[in-house]
């Protein structure tokens, strides 16, 4: 099948001119007369193609340039160089036209009318986007089947919980059957039930309507539940663009084993814990020389042991430590998005 990409980003860079502010009152006065700018590269030379119907996780630490890229794709920002095409159109050249074919949900900033019941907001959106009666009614029916939101419809947005509001914002973003929907941290600040509800909703909407979804998030759960492909950027450059399977193969074996040796705060001084961490690190390296990736550090009252299970099984390590020390509490955590990204950045995985 030979499909045209729905979003094409070719060698796109974005520079911002930032005023170098001088310190103090005298500095401010000097700034008034001689402006001293520095150039910041928010995005440098990014290229990617996104196919219709894909759900792409767009990840990166804070300040990596995710929002900047999304703003360029929605036409709010103009790239300094390079070319962006969304639906075959240059977004910043005709922002209003582009808006007709995209949907945007920006985290906690609702785009619904604050004082109005949701259904009234939907009706206004129907007019703004000139949505067909049939399309509109079909969508409402679909929404009702998916999440059963009918009883929410008469509630003013202002009185909704964050979760309900996010849900409605997502529904509103899909209402005019856009070909691309941008979701910027849609599950931020939500409880577990709501998170999974929203993930299911996005999955279903994508499946039924074949809408392309670009999702930025810091929540690995979102990525696992939704994305087949992820793109990671850091400091404005693309450092990873591949399937999630590839990432899981690589990092799935990483775990953090958290151990606590005493509940007594007097034993858990920072100095003491650092000493214990150093001792464990030395003894582990001596005992398991093949496990090169083991790293031990103290983290509040815990000792964190970073393990690659391909090298060594976690239970072996726990048994070994248990022989010499008394463990009072144990936690095992998966590797977090942030550390995956950090790992990728350090390791340069492609």
């Amino acid at each position: 099948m030979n499909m045209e990409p729905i979003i094409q980003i070719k060698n796109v860079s974005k520079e911002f001119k930032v005023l170098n502010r001088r310190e103090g009152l005298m500095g401010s006065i000097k700034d008034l007369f001689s402006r001293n700018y520095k150039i910041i590269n928010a995005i440098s030379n990014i290229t990617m193609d996104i196919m219709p119907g894909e759900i792409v996780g767009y990840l990166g630490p804070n300040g990596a340039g995710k929002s900047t890229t999304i703003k360029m794709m929605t036409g709010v920002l103009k790239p300094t160089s390079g070319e962006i095409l969304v639906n075959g159109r240059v977004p910043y050249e005709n922002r209003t036209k582009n808006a007709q074919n995209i949907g945007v949900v920006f985290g906690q900033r609702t785009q619904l009318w604050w004082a109005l019941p949701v259904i009234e907001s939907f009706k206004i959106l129907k007019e703004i986007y000139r949505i067909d009666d049939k399309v509109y009614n079909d969508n409402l029916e679909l929404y009702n089947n998916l999440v059963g939101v009918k009883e929410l419809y008469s509630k003013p947005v202002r009185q909704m919980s964050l979760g309900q509001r996010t849900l409605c914002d997502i529904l509103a973003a899909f209402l005019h059957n856009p070909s691309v929907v941008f979701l910027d941290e849609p599950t931020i600040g939500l409880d577990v039930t709501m998170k999974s509800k929203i993930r299911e909703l996005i999955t279903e909407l994508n499946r039924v309507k074949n809408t392309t979804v670009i999702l930025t998030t810091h929540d690995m759960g979102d990525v696992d539940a939704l994305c087949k492909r992820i793109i990671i950027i850091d400091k404005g450059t693309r450092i990873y663009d591949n399937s999630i399977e590839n990432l899981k193969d690589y990092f799935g074996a990483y775990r953090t084993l958290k151990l606590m040796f005493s509940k007594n705060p007097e034993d858990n001084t920072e100095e003491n814990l650092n000493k214990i961490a150093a001792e464990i690190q030395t003894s582990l390296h001596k005992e398991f020389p093949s496990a090169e990736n083991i790293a031990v550090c103290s983290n509040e009252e815990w000792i964190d042991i970073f393990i690659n299970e391909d090298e060594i099984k976690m239970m072996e390590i726990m048994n070994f430590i248990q022989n010499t020390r008394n463990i009072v509490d144990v936690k095992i955590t998966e590797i977090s998005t942030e550390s995956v990204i950090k790992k990728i950045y350090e390791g340069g995985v492609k």
Partner: protein
Amino acid sequence: MKIKKKTNTLRYYAHIYRMILAQDLKSKMNYRADFIISNVGIIATNVSGFIAFWIMFQNFPSILNWTYYEMMFLYGFSLIALTPVQLFFDNNWNLRFQVYSGDFIRYCFRPINLFFYYISEVFDIKGIGQFAFGAGTLIYAWKNLGLSVTPLIILKLIIALFSASLFMIAIMNIAAATCFWITNSGIVMVFMFNFKDYARYPITIFNSIFRFIFTFIIPIAFIAYYPSLIFLRPDNVPLLTYLSPFIGIIFFYISYKVWITGAMQYSGTGS
């Protein structure tokens, strides 16, 4: 063809505005106390302004040949002309907060004129109280001045009020739009908004510098003085009065351009 497209666009916007307005009013009816208190508030503000005006006239029989009722005419006329800016353009007051916090970005993704979309969000019912007070004052002055009431004069009054209202809207659009470039635009807005109080005086009481400023730079003389001359000094109407609808439209258009230019280059804060 082009004209047809234009009227269609106009109908589209009018339709959407009506929808938003109807919904907004419906939801505001649920807060009757809010409606009553805000209107009582704005009427009280206007009454206190009026008392100051009345006390002044207890001491002077006239100001530069402008009698008590003529001054009252200007007063009422200016209040009505200042009603649209209050009723329909009040969201300009929130602009700087939205821009500063980054919330303004949420207006940027609709396939609709950004200025219209932003401004249509808020309808400030306080304006109704102001309109009622202004209309009462104007009618009272009209009667006491013994002015005639003919269909032609009513038409003139409506055109004069409409064009007069454009000036304050334009001033506030520009004042609000400064927030796209400077952080302290609140001061600019308050400063500009306070000029409206000078609109109710005949411009001839100011010296030539202020006369020039209030005519050509911050054109508040067009809010009441110039248009009122048609009714109060029909034998001696200056050219500027006749031009005021055109100047008003041009000025409004400029203010819209300034606003939209600022809004289009807005790109929000980090998130």
